[in-house]
């Protein structure tokens, strides 16, 4: 990464403000996901409602960061690393905003499940998936903050595990539903949540791909892990 400062201090300040906005948004989205998952696992309706309410904060960040990017593009005509940073940020915030939406979705399922009363045996499998996805999101933001490609690649490599967890969970819920049809509504809610978590895993990978683009200038979307490692 380029460490040198711009001749224009103001430009440096703008880039710094932009990066810190993204990290704040990332922090908020992580918190939303953590709360949504806790609300789901503990059937905490109040916490779930707070997540739904706070989604507007995520959306506000999304709009504000877009404005900051527009401003830099029009005022500074960024090139090279600066250009890639702005592009990566526009795409990252888009994914973060969608992760916020998925967290809201999980919170909604949490409210439905809590109304019906918890079924603890259904929760075991989703807990593992949730932990893995939370870890991926955290580490993808860390990779972004530190511009660390090794970390980015390592997060991308976790996605197959998430897919596997999701597949196992689906199979397990199907078994539960066949065994006891009274559990069908709860299982379906849980499957929706699991689907949301799996999507968050994908979006965390997207963020890592933008980090690689930012640092290396290589677009590594839509290629598999082996090809990705060859590229780097």
């Amino acid at each position, binding site marked *: 990464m*380029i460490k*040198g400062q*711009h001749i224009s201090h103001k*430009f440096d300040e703008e880039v710094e403000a932009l990066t810190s906005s993204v990290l704040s948004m990332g922090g908020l989205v992580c918190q939303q996901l953590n709360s949504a998952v806790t609300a789901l696992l503990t059937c905490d309706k109040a916490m779930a409602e707070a997540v739904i309410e706070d989604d507007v904060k995520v959306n506000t960040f999304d709009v504000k960061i877009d404005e900051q990017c527009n401003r830099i593009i029009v005022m500074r005509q960024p090139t*090279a690393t600066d*250009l890639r940073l702005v592009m990566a940020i526009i795409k990252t915030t888009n994914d973060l905003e969608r992760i916020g939406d998925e967290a809201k979705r999980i919170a909604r399922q949490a409210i439905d499940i809590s109304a019906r009363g918890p079924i603890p045996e259904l929760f075991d499998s989703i807990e593992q998936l949730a932990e893995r996805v939370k870890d991926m999101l955290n580490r993808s933001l860390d990779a972004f903050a530190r511009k660390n490609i090794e970390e980015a690649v390592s997060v991308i490599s976790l996605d197959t595990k998430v897919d596997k967890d999701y597949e196992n969970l689906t199979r397990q819920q199907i078994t539960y539903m066949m065994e006891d049809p009274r559990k069908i509504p709860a299982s379906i809610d849980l499957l929706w949540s699991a689907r949301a978590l799996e999507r968050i895993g994908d979006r965390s990978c997207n963020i890592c791909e933008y980090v690689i683009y930012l640092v290396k200038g290589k677009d590594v979307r839509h290629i598999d892990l082996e090809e990705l490692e060859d590229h780097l």
Partner: protein
Amino acid sequence: MKNMMEVQALTFTYNGATEPSLKRINLPIEKNKVTALIGPSGCGKSTLLRGMNRIHDLYPGHRYDGTINLLNSDGEAYTDILTIKKEAELIRLRQRVGMIFQKPTPFPMTIFENIAYGLKLSGVKKRTQIEEVVEQSLRDAALWGEVKDRLSLDARSLSGGQQQRLCIARAIALKPEVILFDEPTSALDPISTLAIEEMISVLREQYSICIVTHNMQQAARISDFTGFMYLGEMVEFDKTETIFMKPSVKQTEDYISGRFG
């Protein structure tokens, strides 16, 4: 496809200087493409451009080492223009490799005569032929519509942007193969600048173009290839897209993104 020009290991020293201003420069000028040279003041980009049609030789004592190959009209072999000695051949070279300067340089004569002058010098005598070429050149330089009813006015009555397009028309009237632009829009307002840029993108279909510019966005907008020069050296040469999105040399990155070197 063959390159129109190839600068190879060119070292150039101004008369009386101890240090060369250009150090072993390599630069290809691809046919029907726009090649831009960027770099801070004093990096040698204009010096390089002026070497490419030997306009330095208007003053004696400068020293060239290396090769500047120009593709012969047959499109097969190259001639090293640094081997040209006769004045007449140098004049012929400057017809084949035309140059447009930073400040418009209209001759103190009518718009029509500005273009006809070079044609007459090069031996064209028939009035109808001259009229034809004048009209075509003005059309190619996107100026015909604005001046067709006042060809007999003094060229200096035109606006700066129009004068610059007149100079371009004057250069292309002689059917050059390469056109060298030395900061052609730095003295013009944004609208005239866009008009010249638009014209360059059309001219590219017929000519090979090399442009020196301080305006990096201009290089990014109009060129296919870009060379970044610094202290008399060609630091990096690549497709314009690569130079502005992912340059390989840190010095290039620092320069185009406005950082301290």
